[in-house]
């Protein structure tokens, strides 16, 4: 009988080995952008020493690394001190749960973690947690805790809790879904209560999506709303030799097996850039919200800003933002901006202005095209209603309804047919009783 080891090995291999290489292997299964020269790894000093940090616990299983970015240093197009969000800016436009000044009293802490996987669960670790804040001189301070070994987690969590104790507001990018629940799991794992429970938290991802996300619709090739995409677009910051996110867990596992800290250097840098860019993007978003459409560099931002004002019931500012977007933007921006503006006007009882906005949408359409886009259908329908019931120009109403009729299907088609029949009836009887709105239309 084969021995147990051989049988076990056979089963483990047959069922698919791990993507990470064994200790000392020269050919990693997943290609890393940095492959350590295993032979060259020395034993000089502890992990903390080799990384240039200080041990948090006696055993050095958790390492603390501090880095300062001076106020006058630049991060892309902006200087570091300008990355600091202003406490007087209208943050509540983005998240009503965060109060404007109260939560800024003490320290705003930017927070980002690097983990051994995205699946979550008890076996996934946050091996690097990064915190950043501004000092009184406008410099950005980053404090990172790194797990040199799994035993360092408890001291890491304690040290992190001390940072959070100093904070009055936590800022993350997607932290409401990922970073904070993830860390809460780790505190629960160690059976201690999470210091994040009562800490106000501002997650920059949803506002970023509202401000910069809709570009995707018009430009399917755009990079989306990742922090690296935003820092390029908003801050003009380009990373060099950045560690790709998917590679991070594999690098850490290899560090565990080889002790090569140079595998980690890139991850530390990646995490620091994430923190600084997060601060800068947030600062910029708040600034835009206060300055209004004139400060925007792109019409898409103006359109988005309009929607943000509208959501907060600041309708005049919203209309202003839409008007700017209409003036500056291309057709893809103009159409949604016009539609939103038209609705704002109609809600305020400015029917003629609403009609003009709708008409402007139709005027954007090339003459040659017969079919209607969704915006144009909305516009044609709104204009048919407007001319039937308010302007009482039945002929024009019929014109819009006919254009609409050719372009609709299903239920909308039935409604259009009904409208056409009613218009025909009214035209026959001389439009005598056109003064009232029918229930169907409003």
């Amino acid at each position, binding site marked *: 009988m084969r021995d147990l080891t051989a049988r076990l*090995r056979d089963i483990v291999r047959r069922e698919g080995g791990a993507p990470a290489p064994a200790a000392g292997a020269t050919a990693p299964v997943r290609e890393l952008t940095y492959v350590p020269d295993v032979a060259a790894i020395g034993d000089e000093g502890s992990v903390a020493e080799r990384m240039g940090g200080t041990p948090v616990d006696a055993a050095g299983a958790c390492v603390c690394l501090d880095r300062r970015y001076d106020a006058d240093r630049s991060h892309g197009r902006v200087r570091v001190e300008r990355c600091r969000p202003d406490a007087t800016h209208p943050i509540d436009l983005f998240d009503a749960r965060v109060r404007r000044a109260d939560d800024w009293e003490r320290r705003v802490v930017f927070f980002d973690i690097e983990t051994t996987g995205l*699946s979550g669960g008890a076996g996934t670790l946050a091996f690097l947690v990064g915190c950043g804040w501004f000092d009184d001189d406008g410099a950005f301070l980053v404090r990172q805790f790194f797990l040199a070994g799994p035993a360092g987690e408890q001291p890491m969590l304690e040290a992190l809790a001390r940072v959070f104790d100093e904070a009055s507001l936590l800022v993350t990018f997607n932290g409401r879904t990922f970073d904070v629940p993830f860390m809460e799991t780790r505190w629960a794992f160690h059976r201690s209560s999470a210091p994040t429970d009562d800490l106000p938290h501002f997650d920059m991802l949803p506002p970023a999506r509202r401000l910069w996300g809709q570009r995707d619709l018009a430009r399917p090739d755009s990079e989306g709303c990742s922090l690296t995409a935003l820092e390029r677009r908003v801050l003009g910051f380009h990373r060099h030799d950045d560690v790709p996110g998917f590679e991070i867990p594999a690098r850490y596992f290899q560090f*565990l097996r080889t002790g090569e800290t140079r595998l980690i250097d890139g991850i530390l840098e990646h995490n620091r850039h994430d923190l600084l860019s997060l601060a800068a993007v947030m600062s910029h978003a708040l600034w835009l919200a206060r300055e209004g459409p004139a400060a925007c560099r792109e019409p898409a931002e103006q359109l988005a800003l309009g929607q943000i004002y509208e959501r907060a019931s600041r309708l005049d500012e919203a209309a202003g933002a839409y008007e700017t977007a209409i003036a500056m933007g291309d057709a893809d921006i103009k159409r949604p901006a016009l539609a939103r503006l038209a609705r704002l006007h109609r809600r305020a009882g400015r029917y003629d202005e609403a009609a003009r906005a709708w008409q402007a949408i139709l005027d954007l359409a090339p003459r040659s095209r017969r079919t209607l886009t969704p915006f144009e259908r909305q516009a044609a329908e709104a204009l048919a209603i407007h001319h039937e019931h308010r302007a009482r120009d039945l002929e024009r109403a019929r014109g819009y309804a006919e254009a609409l009729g050719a372009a609709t299907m299903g239920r909308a088609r039935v409604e259009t047919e009904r409208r056409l029949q009613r218009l025909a009836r009214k035209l026959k009887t001389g439009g005598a009783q056109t003064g009232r709105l029918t229930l169907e239309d409003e």
Partner: protein
Amino acid sequence: MVTLPALTGDKDQSLQAVLSRLQAEHEAALAAADELARGASAEAHVTAVRRLPAVPADYAPFPASLDDRLRRALAARGIEQLYTHQAAAVDHALAGRNVVVVTPTASGKTLCYNLPVLGSILQDASSRALYLFPTKALAQDQLAELHHLVQLAGTEGADDIGVFTYDGDTPQDARRAIRTRAHVVLSNPDMLHAGILPHHPRWAKLFENLRFVVIDELHAYRGVFGSHLANIIRRLRRVCRHYGSDPVFICSSATIANPRELAERLIGDRFELVDRSGAPRGEKYFLFVNPPIVNRELGIRRSYLAEARRVAIEFLQRGLQLIVFAQSRLSTEILTTYLKDAFQGPPGAADVIRGYRGGYLPLRRREIERDLREGVVRCVVSTNALELGIDIGALDVAVMAGYPGTIASTWQRAGRAGRRSGRSAAVLVASSAPIDQFVVRNPDFFFEASAEHALVNPDNLHILLAHVKCAAFELPFRQDEVFGTIDVQEILAILSEEGFVHLAGGQWQWTQESYPADAVSLRSISSDNFVVVDATKGERVIGETDFSSGPSTLHEKAIYIVEGQLFQVETLDYEGRKAYVRAVECDYYTDAITYTKVTMLETFAASGSEGAAVVGDQAGTAALAAGIEMPDEEPAVREYALSTDVAPGELSPATRAERAHGEVHVVSRVVGFKKIKFYTNENVGSGELELPEQEMHTTAYWLTIPASVMTAMPFGTADRRDGVIGLAHAMRNVAPLLLMCDGHDVGMAIDGLGVDGANGLGGTRRGEQPLELSAAPTIFLYDSYPGGIGFSEPLYGMHEALLERTLGLIAGCPCESGCPSCVGPEGATGPLAKAAALHLLSELTGVSAPA
């Protein structure tokens, strides 16, 4: 078309009337047979009628340890005292002793665990309990029951007791609230394995305060499923230790031979056993029906499905409500079709006959269960899916189409009919499968034997490895930690070589991005399944099938049946795991032909070959290398020349069967299918299929017939081959009886070319492929699960008994030259199969067969 009488009137009388009729028929048949020719049909039609008398209740006072408020709540429900088994279970649980309660159906087992659990929560609001049910449906059922009890206790301050199910159907947004608010979580092993344990920090509150773990239907955790559960419990207890809790386990089980042993194997701890039920039972009749032989030469009996249909109709016409159990999904659908044909109600009326099986969507199942309780459905035809304790109300009759395979499950199914008072009946209709025939011809074997042992093998290396990975993900292993009986440190060292874990600071840390529980499914070989998409009108998912049975039931042109409605598979998207079907009308169903090839990898132990044990890792070729293939012959040119090279007397014991057990590689492939006409079972066509192979490594017992025995057989080549096939067929059917396991747990193959007997409808059927038989053919009986479930070694140990029982089965069969009940139907084997098999057996055992 028949209209059904209302579900009212004196049910006892109606039941008696049907039973009398069935018996009278039996006597008339006997009398007629007497008149025709003595002994022509000596076999009884109803082979056994047993009356199980009513049993009165046995009460005990409430245990003093039980919370007073709960006692008052029960009193409000009219419960003033407990049955003895309930009191004993509550007493053990509250004293902190693990307890397993063995109770028949409808004996109030839920109070055995609900009382200590709710009592402890009433006394300490932080106390928590976890319930595990083998299916989601059972958890739903118990949720209603628990809610009711909590409501009753509500006036006593139990308003805040949170009881929730947590399974795959729980909406994402409700999960967080459940994790913190639930005092009692009702779940299943799959969810515990993949949803709860890997995320234990989120459940910290539950694990810190876990007082009780309730495992219902413990007997369901046999074989692979049980081996998985044992490992999940190891993981659960590890996590509990991390959070400082040490829960008491309360288990309930149907009747099996070894409930305490099973509980102790699964939980890894000592158990108290409570196995005397104090619950009253009504009178019950148990009948065995053997369909009459219609062709004596071929040993063909009347179809047991047709017979089950006839019996069911008798009861239905008398206004009784019944459940019909079928052996497979296919036979369930066929019986449903038959009964629907007989009881087609007026158009638009609610269906009174329904099918029920795994693969139906949950909504449909809930509807059927409800309609059964409310009496709208008069008859449900089900697979074993309804064998477990899903609440379908008290039915009058249980009809079993085919022997369920084990004594335990037969009693369990019989128990679905019957109330605490009043009469009920259970009828077993035997198929022509050998095991069925053995049982109906030997009623005492069934009524007097103990139920089966439930076996688990938690240290199956495949299963163990999978769970060690999961456990390492959940909590780093310490360097001195133990997990089961196999050295876990050695396993971790190997996992470390492959990069799964890394040893640092005395702990094995998980070093993978993946989530290991996702890769492990508890119920089948692969976590994959096939979905069935009806493309008749738009696309609609109408069912699903586990991965391993996908190819045989969803191949192109297969007929897929849902509650009697026929669909034909148009395309099977094997990669996408989807089968597109279209509704059809036809009068046949399909039955796949599967080829199985077994290759020896390693012999663990062997004996019988010239006295020397074969031990080694290259034994794979040992049996096959000696094989000189005999060319297949034209069936018409049968050779009857006697081989006289070796006189039988010269055979020494050393040349008798070489048997061994070890590791094998099993490859099976669906190669074609047959079209079988409904009702007549005529073969009306066939087709070939090209489908991917499915393969596994498992353990097997095998028997090699020495070349000397083969060549010495006084039969022609084709008949020798038939003899081997017949012998294998019979052995494959005797093995589960000896192992006391389910027939599906054991697979069989000969030499290399497969004969799959577990195919299709109860009557065994086999591919009519030409078999190339080597000079020394080998019969494999393998565990139908990767890595084996632990049957091969006992089978090797029982080799002598296996051959003797097989000899007994074939020799004792009343057929003339082989039938489905012994060596297989004559159509598939030759006329001398029975004689050749008997000859082989007498050579192998040294016992001559009775003439």
